[in-house]
């Protein structure tokens, strides 16, 4: 009994952290699974989303002062929701731009795609430094979802529940989109056999562009939702992209539920070690990875992938 009540908050913490990790990994997984591109710019797009939301949430005066005044008078909840829509759309456009350049690397060694996105990550990170400076920011949270909750004598941050619930909703939506809509079927088919998909008269280049935009937008959404918890710094992207890598390797490339399960496992590992040895909490996910790949070389649910050739 005592052990359970001791452990419970850490378990809750771990699972909610795991869901956030899953949220980060979604866009990365989509682009890797469908386009076979390791998008090293994922973390930078994540950060870019958070910064754009920051600008949208804390409007400063400038040209169009009347519009800004009207916008600033909106309730914070509405503005947060608006930022959650507008910023990912902008980042999605940015993703389209990257994909447009990336086209030249298709059909060549997949290394080039990875290297190109590394260059893009460098550029985005530096752009962020130029536009927003190097200082830390905090993303303001609307009052409805801030503050604490008292459950059985323990205080939980309300926002963490919101973020975890949001992550769950995004996971479900993406799964429904990929598995239960014709668009998802086309995307999967495009990843599987692009020649036949093109022969069926589907505009594959446009499809790939939209997938990349969707992946970039998902990165931005993750960035915004997680920003109030982790804070906003120019290099916050690196903190985000590394768990995403780990989770994909751990879950197995190409497996949706593998990635989700891996995220929760990683979250639990970090949450539980955080309770007893906080300094080393992040190391536990690496140890988990090593333990898993020692016994299951392709991760938990990995299948033999075209990416290995």
């Amino acid at each position: 009994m005592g052990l359970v009540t001791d452990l419970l908050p850490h378990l809750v913490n771990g699972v909610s952290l795991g869901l956030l990790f899953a949220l980060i990994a979604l866009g990365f997984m989509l682009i890797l699974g469908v386009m076979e591109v390791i998008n090293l710019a994922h973390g930078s797009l994540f950060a870019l989303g958070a910064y754009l939301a920051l600008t949208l949430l804390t409007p400063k005066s400038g040209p169009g002062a009347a519009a800004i005044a009207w916008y600033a008078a909106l309730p914070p909840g509405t503005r947060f929701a608006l930022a959650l829509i507008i910023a990912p759309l902008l980042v999605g456009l940015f993703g389209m731009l990257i994909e447009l350049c990336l086209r030249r690397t298709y059909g060549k060694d997949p290394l080039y795609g990875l290297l190109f996105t590394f260059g893009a990550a460098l550029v985005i990170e530096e752009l962020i430094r130029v536009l927003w400076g190097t200082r830390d920011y905090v993303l303001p949270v609307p009052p409805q979802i801030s503050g604490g909750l008292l459950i059985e004598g323990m205080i939980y941050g309300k926002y963490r529940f919101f973020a975890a619930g949001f992550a769950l909703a995004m996971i479900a939506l993406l799964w429904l989109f990929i598995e239960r809509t014709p668009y998802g079927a086309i995307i999967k088919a495009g990843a599987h056999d692009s020649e036949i998909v093109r022969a069926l008269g589907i505009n594959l280049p446009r499809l790939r562009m939209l997938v990349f935009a969707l992946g970039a937008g998902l990165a931005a959404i993750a960035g915004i939702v997680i920003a109030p918890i982790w804070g906003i710094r120019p290099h916050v992207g690196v903190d985000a992209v590394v768990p995403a890598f780990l989770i994909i390797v751990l879950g197995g490339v190409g497996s949706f539920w593998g990635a989700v399960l891996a995220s929760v496992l990683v979250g639990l590992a970090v949450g539980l070690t955080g309770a007893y040895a906080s300094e080393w909490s992040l190391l536990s996910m690496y140890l988990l990875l090593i333990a898993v790949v020692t016994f299951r070389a392709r991760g938990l649910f990995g299948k033999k992938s075209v990416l290995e050739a």
Partner: protein
Amino acid sequence: MSLRQTAFLTLLAAGLLTLPLWIARVGLYQYLGIEILVWGLYALSFNLLLGYTGLPSFGHGAYFGVGAYAFGLLQKHVGANLWLDLGGAVLAAALCGALVAAFISHRRGIYYALMTIAFGQIVWFVAIKWHSVTGGEDGLLNLKRVPADFGFTSISLADNVSLYYFVLAICCLAVWLLWRIVHSPFGRVIQAIRQNETRAAFIGYHVWFYKWLAFVVSAGLSGLAGALFALAQLGAFPDVMSLHASGFVVMMTLIGGGLVSFWGPLIGAAVFFVARDALGALTSTWPLWYGVMFMAVVLLEPEGIAGLWQARRGRAAPPIAAQAGD
């Protein structure tokens, strides 16, 4: 060796040997020469994996860093003997590489890249968190440039010019070793693995072992470069192990043309540091412009400077395997 290669090597040797005489006159500084040599060696040994074996190791900063830290720790706790410390650094990096390679050598392609990133992050993380040994984010400070003791004579490395020549000598040895390796039967096998791993396995080569050994050699020599860097910097710092720094060595290798030329990575390292200083003098946001330049290289000329040079000489750039015979 063809006439063209002899001419290139003579020019390269003359340029490197006389570098301390003219580098200050063209507005640069002595320390830059050391940086270029050290990172050039690092990129050359990295290219044993990327260019020759076809393995994208994206967390190679780990072995460079392990070399630097091992050098510093040996100097502080075991003994300030230069040869012992350098040798120990190579050994430590090779051991670390051997361990990681044992986990990943049955993989290839993008999966290999993901795994090397993950392992690189582990090493970086340990370096940052293990305060009592590594000094955490501050790194190992106050290392000394101990003199190079040859028994009959001892040479001080305190000033940058003598250190430059010392590093040059070590690099020559290491690069000669790399050159012999890639032109040995072992070198032929790893190039065969790059071209077609399955076929190499069917011919009867133990592919796993060759990939493992290539990684160990590459990690060990990267560790040597890291140790020399610690010697030059008077300290070992965790930033060389970050994902970014690991990306930089890939950039150097690619921009120089490591995919088509043995010497490409060295050229790339020189271009990287000169570009850093030249762009850095013009603008404080040099990574932005360097990133743009790098993206353009990947898209337009992925075979880099060496590839451009070969194309200018009116022949299709031969893959590394094709020029191995000379």
